[in-house]
């Protein structure tokens, strides 16, 4: 079976996918964005304006997913629309139901993998490096994050287009559990590394510049530790972040004034 979509169409869909969340709204969520990304395959598959409009309207309906994983659904839907046209399906409802069914898994996997996993872990590495080695942290942070990010987008679009309905088998939270665990482990390690780097930086700002046991020299590290403990407790009791920051700032000033009085 020869594919109707060209490579150019897939690339066109890919760059549109980068903007998929641009029109997020309370009614259709990613619906308008999905319609925008679907335009290349709709133009390729349907020649009459009436058919194009009918297809476009369906894809403007409600849709939601993690933005990076929207490309998986987009590729699969392009494949299904192509099959529906070739095999002259009477009804397009299977495609709409398929899209609805993907909303849950695509959101859950993407959020856990990227927002709760790769992003904080990459940021932890970036911060630890930033506090010890300087600017090199920035390109490294972007690379650590964007290699998996762009891979997921490109691979998802191609896999979706290759597999159609069958893409569902690879999209279960259970199948990704290994990745989630690995990222949590990497994050725990990074957290420790980051804590040591921040403590070192605070030490260098104070005691590293003057006599190690001078009260003023210990202030940065003391403020850092006090703020850390306070925030840990505040997070445990779900106190709003801005109040916590204000509390930490006050503690910092009090410690500094106390050291000056000594």
């Amino acid at each position, binding site marked *: 079976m020869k594919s109707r979509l060209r490579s150019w169409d897939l690339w066109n869909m890919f760059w549109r996918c*980068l*903007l998929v*969340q*641009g*029109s*997020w*709204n*309370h*009614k259709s969520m990613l619906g*308008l964005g999905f319609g925008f990304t679907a*335009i290349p395959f709709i133009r390729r598959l349907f020649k009459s304006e009436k058919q*194009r409009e009918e297809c*476009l309207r369906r894809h403007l309906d409600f849709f939601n997913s993690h*933005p*990076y994983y929207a490309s998986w659904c987009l590729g699969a839907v392009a494949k299904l629309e192509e099959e529906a046209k070739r095999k002259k399906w009477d009804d397009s409802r299977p495609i709409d139901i398929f899209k609805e069914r993907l909303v849950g898994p695509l*959101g859950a996997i993407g959020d856990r993998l990227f927002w*709760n996993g790769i992003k*904080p*872990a990459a*940021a*932890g590495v970036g*911060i630890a490096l*930033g506090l*010890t080695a300087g*600017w090199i942290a920035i390109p490294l942070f*972007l690379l650590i*994050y*964007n290699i998996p*990010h762009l891979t997921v987008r490109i691979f998802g679009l191609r896999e979706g287009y290759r597999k159609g309905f069958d893409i569902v088998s690879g999209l279960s939270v259970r199948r990704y559990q290994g990745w989630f665990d690995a990222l*949590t482990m990497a994050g*725990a*390690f*990074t*957290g*420790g*590394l*980051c*804590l*040591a780097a*921040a*403590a070192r930086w*605070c030490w*260098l700002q104070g005691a590293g510049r003057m006599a190690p046991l001078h009260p003023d020299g210990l202030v940065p590290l003391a403020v*850092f530790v*006090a*703020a*850390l*403990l306070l*925030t*840990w407790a505040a997070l445990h009791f779900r106190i709003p*972040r*801005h109040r916590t*920051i204000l509390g*930490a*700032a006050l*503690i*910092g*000033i009090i410690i*500094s004034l106390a050291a*000056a009085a000594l």
Partner: protein
Amino acid sequence: MWQDVVVVSLWGGFVALDTTAAMQILISRPLVSCSVVGLLLGSFAPGFIIGLMFELIYLDELPVGGALFNEGNLGATIAAGLAILLSRESGRPDLAVPLAALAGLLTSKAGAHIVVALRTRNTEIYTRLIERPRITSGAVTRAHLHCLLLMFAAGVVLTFTALVLFFFIFRSLIPLIPAGWDAHLRTLIYAFLGVGCAVLLYIFYERKRWWLFAAGLGLGLLVWLFTAAGAGGGL
């Protein structure tokens, strides 16, 4: 000064886009966006330090679905720009950085409500589109790009307004603060860093995996012991 404000405001527009609307390649994260502000204004170090602080503080803010989240990315960008402009103006960087960070925190709170307002506006645009008797791919493209343009414009306007407003407030406030207080206010930087590290630990620390955390901490302490040089990007 006005040229710098315009440049940072335009960058604020791109930060607003990258946060949720377009690409999300994380150039909007404070670590990157504040450093870019530092480079644009010719003073890398304060931007970088503010970026590190805000990156940690807002690490657990998730731009998921319709969630109301603090616009930490824009807040940090504004804080970085403000810190550099105020340091230049007053010659008191130890005071300018914490004051700018406070302004950034306030703006991030305001930014959350602007995002909600924009999403409501997007809903109106979407409703108007689907109520049209005839929908073409051109109309869909225009509606989508309209939403993106609104987000960019909101980022530019918020950055410009906050920068100008806080700059003039702090410029008149700084001479009233005795120079002896600079050292005490500088401690806010360490406090913010402590807050941020606690956030990172809270995300990842699990009792059954304490050994991984200890391994990271141990490696970090070894690096501390064997490196005598000062921290990169320090103020």
